[in-house]
């Protein structure tokens, strides 16, 4: 596609439920990043995929968070047993070695 696409754009979920967020990167981009941005805060790195290399999961805040990416295609970020502190905008970016292109994000609200 023309840009990075994320879905859903908004998600409201009940505490304790699992959620799955999707990111469609720009075709041909080998790198994909997930970030979390709480209200008024900076970008919090979550996970980084680069081609077929093992992902860098060093930013995942707990074992409730996981992400997958098959090859250089779609990625999904899964949050299990959501908590209120998980409420944030989740941003995905893709890159082919240099600048990153961001999606519009998924705003997650845990009630």
């Amino acid at each position: 596609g023309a840009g990075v696409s994320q879905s859903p754009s908004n998600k409201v979920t009940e505490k304790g439920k699992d959620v799955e967020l999707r990111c469609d990167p720009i075709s041909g981009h080998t790198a994909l990043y997930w970030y979390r941005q709480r209200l008024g805060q900076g970008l919090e790195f979550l996970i980084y995929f680069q081609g077929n290399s093992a992902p860098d999961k060093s930013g995942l805040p707990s074992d409730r968070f996981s992400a997958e990416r098959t090859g250089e295609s779609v990625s999904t970020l899964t949050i299990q047993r959501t908590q209120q502190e998980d409420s944030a905008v989740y941003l995905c970016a893709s890159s082919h070695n240099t600048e990153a292109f961001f999606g519009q994000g998924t705003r997650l609200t845990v009630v």
Partner: protein
Amino acid sequence: AQSVTQPDIHITVSEGASLELRCNYSYGATPYLFWYVQSPGQGLQLLLKYFSGDTLVQGIKGFEAEFKRSQSSFNLRKPSVHWSDAAEYFCAVVIPQAGNNRKLIWGLGTSLAVNP
């Protein structure tokens, strides 16, 4: 450790005044350098980037940035700020990793407020 530092968390300037947002990085060589802007309720937009060559780079919206190797800095500047420049500004670097990989590292951002 590789890192990006934006020393100023919040900056307030008057409309028409000049602006400089600081960015320092920690890396042994010269990375690729970027500035992004995030306006309220908007996504992240690339302002400008530096890969090599002329150390003063021009970007969109009248912004420029200067790479100074000796100071490991890439400060963002604008001669005259407009009210619409109020936003969050992020500095980022791309650093080579093992193999042919490259990793994007971000500063925490500087929030710019513009007084009329």
